Each structure stands twice: as structure tokens, then as C-alpha cells.
């Protein structure tokens, strides 16, 4: 979508101001989705005007020039409040921009607002007790996922082509899956976290949610200064796609399993080879990753512990668990993490990428705490993070893209690659996107 808009802008078929006004109109029209905590209409229109003037002088910054985007409200924006979805930071106005904001603006992107999130980015529902529930553009009674729920909803509703998110235990990939958009968690350390409020110091990643994998790639180029461009017709011919023999495909909603099976068949049709690969004890690895997160989040929020009572009950309970954990548990979890990392990395000897479910189910309803997919009730939070959490502990790049529908809700395919294989993995994602035909999946709310 960004390429299409960029062509229209360069050809002066539309102006930056017109595009920005349209994004703001759509945000108003879909206000019930509650994708934004703050809209920055005045500064966005002023920036768009300047960018139009540059185009008039023949100055072009690149494909993001004049493109309306949004930023998760945990990313610092100079002079614009950055709430982290929390009452504690409700009036916090940073005196600096996060590095990713600096880079987006340098690339010509127009920031139209700050998107809603699960409180302190610590949860998967985005049902925020202070700023209201963010709603799924496909069904307003359902969650958009989280914690970058507002970013997923803003892109899914067609308000903007890209919105930045953060991912500590699936927080980009879960909303991408539930909202039917693309989401990219780059290799750990690839994108700057300076000026982004931390949750899990060794688990946090910043990345885009966008209308397509190609749009994610364009954004990555802007965020890193490295070339992530994707050729016109990317191919996965000869690529070895790993399908884990255990864990990942064991607990799936029927419609999700069917969509994923179809994605595997499609990959084979276009020349890839599907190979079964062993997975380590993922239940144990998820426990290790959760221990690390509990401890790191508790450390990050320690300065605000005196205001514990102002934190919503679900996040407070997670923080309390972190404050109760012995230091030895954290250290030993990090030792086990190193071992799992070594062991799991062996799979790259037998495959080039992994295809996994992003989420075992489609979007649950707001307020739903358990889900039954055939083997009794499962905790929504634990089930939803089941296929994503460990990947943060590995630091590997992961892209999610829509691969089908189940009961009128989007299903996400998650593609994982080895560290620093981001560019080739994005090409694989784009090839699958082309083959599956779900590019720019837009919810009814966005039509």
C-alpha cells in the first residue's frame, strides 16, 4: 500500500495534506475502534504541508514521504504525551523523540497519532482500564490482541498504512494475527529502543505493523538505514520450510489449522519444500521466557512501585509476581535460555525458515478469560502467547501475515528465520503474501 500511495504522491495525484486529512477522517469515522489515545492532527497537518512544499521543490525523501503513520503510545514523542497506556504516565510529555520517531520523520512519514495498548505493554488484550478497550476492526466485540492493539486496529481499519509496535512476548505478532495485517519483529537489537519505555530489557523489540509485508520492509529500511527492499516477484523456490513435529500444531482452533495447512500447500505449490523439524521442550522454554519477563518487567517498573495501586489488576498481578521472584530464578532462567538458544539453533541446519501459527485461535471476545479448543478450558493469555513468547527469548526475526479466514476472522501465519536473516525472511513473507492473495486485508470497518 505504501508503494501505491508513494507513487500517487510523487505523481502529485494526491497531496501529503490530503492523505493526512483522509487518515484523520478515518480515525474519526472509526472512533469506536478506539485505536488512538492521542491524535496529533495539528502537528501532522503542519508536517504534511512542509512535505508537500518539499515535493513542490522536487525534494523527495523516499517511499515514506508524506505517508500517514501512527506510533504506539509507549514510544516517546517530543511535546506529545506518552502514556504507556497507564495512569502513572497519563500526563507524561517527553522532551525528546525516540530514535525510531526521529528516523520515521527523517524519512518523511507523517505521525497522525499515538495508538492505544495494553497497560504498560504488559498483556495481550489491549482492554485498557484507563483509556478504554481497543476493539477489533473485524468485530467490535473482540479484542485486537496486544499489547500493540491500537497499532493493529489502526492498520486493520485502514486508518494508516503502518503503525509502530513493540514486541516483548508477541505484542506485534498477536495483534497482526487478530487484525489481519502484517507485523514484523526484527532480530533483537536491529532497531533502536532508545526512547521506548522498557518492559523486558532483553526481550523488547520495536517493529512495524502494516498493510503488507512489503510495507514492513519499507519501514525497516527507514528505521535502520539498511536495505530491506523486496524485488517485484520474490521467490521461495527451493527454500526449506520447517514444520515443527511437536508443540506448535498441537493446540489449534480447527479453522486456524485449516488455514495453516493451506499455507503449507501453497508454499509447496510455488516451489518450497516442507521438512519436519524437531522442537525442544517448548513448554519448558516458555516457562523460562516468562520467568525472564516477570523479573525484567518488575525491574523496569520498580521506580513506580509506590504507585502500584494505580495499575490495573491484571498488570499489577503480573508485576507482583515479578517482585516476588528470587534473583536466583532470574539468573538460572537466563542460563537455561542460553542453552535453549544453542539447542534450538540447530534447526537451521535442516531448514531455512519455520512456518508456525501466530496465534492458536482467532480473536477472542473482550472480557473472555478462557477458551476451549477441544481439550478443556485454556487461559486466553497463556494460549495466545503459546506460539510467540519463546521467539523473543531467542531474538530471532518473525513476520506474521494473514493466511486465511476462520468464521469471518483473520488467521495469521508466522514465519521465523535465523538471527539477522531479516531481509530474506521478509522476502519469503512477501512471496507467501503474493501467493496467498491476502495482501491489504482490510476489515469491514475500514471499507
Amino acid at each position, binding site marked *: 500500500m505504501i508503494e501505491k500511495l508513494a507513487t500517487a504522491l510523487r505523481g502529485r495525484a494526491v497531496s501529503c495534506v490530503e492523505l493526512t486529512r483522509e487518515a484523520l477522517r478515518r480515525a474519526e469515522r472509526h472512533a469506536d475502534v478506539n485505536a488512538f489515545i492521542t491524535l496529533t492532527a495539528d502537528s501532522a497537518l503542519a508536517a504534511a504541508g512542509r512535505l508537500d512544499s518539499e515535493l513542490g521543490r522536487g525534494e523527495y525523501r523516499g517511499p515514506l514521504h508524506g505517508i500517514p503513520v501512527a506510533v504506539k503510545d509507549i514510544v516517546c514523542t517530543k511535546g506529545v504525551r506518552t502514556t504507556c497506556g497507564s495512569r502513572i504516565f497519563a500526563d507524561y510529555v517527553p522532551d525528546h523523540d525516540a530514535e525510531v520517531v526521529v528516523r520515521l520523520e527523517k524519512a518523511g512519514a507523517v505521525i497522525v497519532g499515538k495508538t492505544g495498548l495494553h497497560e504498560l505493554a504488559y498483556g495481550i488484550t489491549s482492554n485498557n482500564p484507563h483509556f478504554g478497550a481497543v476493539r477489533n476492526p473485524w468485530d467490535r466485540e473482540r479484542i485486537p490482541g496486544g499489547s500493540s492493539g491500537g497499532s493493529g486496529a489502526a492498520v486493520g481499519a485502514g486508518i494508516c498504512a503502518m503503525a509502530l509496535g513493540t514486541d516483548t512476548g508477541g505484542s506485534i505478532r498477536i495483534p497482526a494475527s487478530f487484525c489481519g495485517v502484517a507485523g514484523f519483529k526484527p532480530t533483537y*537489537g536491529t532497531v*533502536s529502543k532508545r526512547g521506548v519505555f522498557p518492559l523486558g530489557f532483553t526481550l523488547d523489540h520495536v517493529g512495524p505493523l502494516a498493510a503488507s509485508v512489503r510495507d514492513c520492509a519499507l519501514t525497516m529500511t527507514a528505521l535502520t538505514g539498511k536495505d530491506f527492499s523486496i524485488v517485484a516477484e520474490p521467490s521461495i523456490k527451493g527454500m526449506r520450510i520447517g514444520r515443527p513435529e511437536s508443540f506448535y500444531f498441537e493446540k489449534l482452533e480447527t479453522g486456524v489449522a485449516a488455514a495453516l495447512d493451506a499455507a503449507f500447500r501453497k508454499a509447496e505449490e510455488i516451489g518450497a519444500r516442507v521438512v519436519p523439524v524437531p522442537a525442544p521442550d517448548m513448554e519448558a522454554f516458555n*516457562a523460562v521466557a516468562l*520467568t525472564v519477563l516477570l523479573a525484567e518487567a518488575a525491574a523496569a517498573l520498580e521506580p513506580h512501585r509506590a504507585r502500584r495501586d494505580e495499575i490495573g489488576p491484571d498488570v499489577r*498481578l503480573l508485576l*507482583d509476581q515479578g517482585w*516476588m*521472584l528470587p534473583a536466583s530464578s532470574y539468573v538460572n532462567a537466563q542460563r537455561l535460555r542460553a542453552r535453549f538458544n544453542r539447542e534450538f539453533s540447530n534447526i537451521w541446519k535442516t531448514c531455512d525458515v519455520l512456518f508456525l501459527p501466530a496465534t492458536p485461535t482467532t480473536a477472542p471476545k473482550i472480557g473472555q478469560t478462557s477458551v476451549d479448543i477441544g481439550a478443556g478450558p485454556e487461559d486466553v493469555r497463556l494460549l495466545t502467547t503459546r506460539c510467540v513468547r519463546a521467539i523473543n527469548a531467542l531474538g530471532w526475526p518473525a513476520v506474521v501475515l494473514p493466511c486465511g479466514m476462520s468464521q469471518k476472522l483473520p488467521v495469521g501465519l508466522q514465519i521465523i528465520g535465523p538471527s539477522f536473516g531479516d531481509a530474506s525472511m521478509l522476502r519469503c513473507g512477501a512471496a507467501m503474501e503474493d501467493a496467498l492473495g491476502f495482501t491489504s486485508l482490510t476489515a469491514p470497518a475500514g471499507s
Partner: protein
Amino acid sequence: MTDWKKIAEAQGLKLAEADLAIAVARLGALEERLRALLPTLSPDEEPFVPQASPR
């Protein structure tokens, strides 16, 4: 097994009974899983160290 209730008290955390029960159950399950793996760790196995993030 760890007495999580005592730890909560020592940390000055005032949890409602229902919340404490949830926290104890979750932390107990995590502890059980990690404890099962600890005997397999050799002293040579050091903690994971992530690469530095760009500023």
C-alpha cells in the same frame, strides 16, 4: 517449596486473597518447571547475554 505468601509479605505487597492464590499457583508452576531443569545445568553454563541494541 517456596513460601510465596511470606515473600509477598516481606516485599510489602498487599495482595487480596484471590490474587495471592493466583500468584502462588503461577509462581509455583514456574518454579516446578525450572527446578526440574536445574540439575541438568552444568556450572559452565552461563546466563544468556543479549547483543547490544543500537542507540
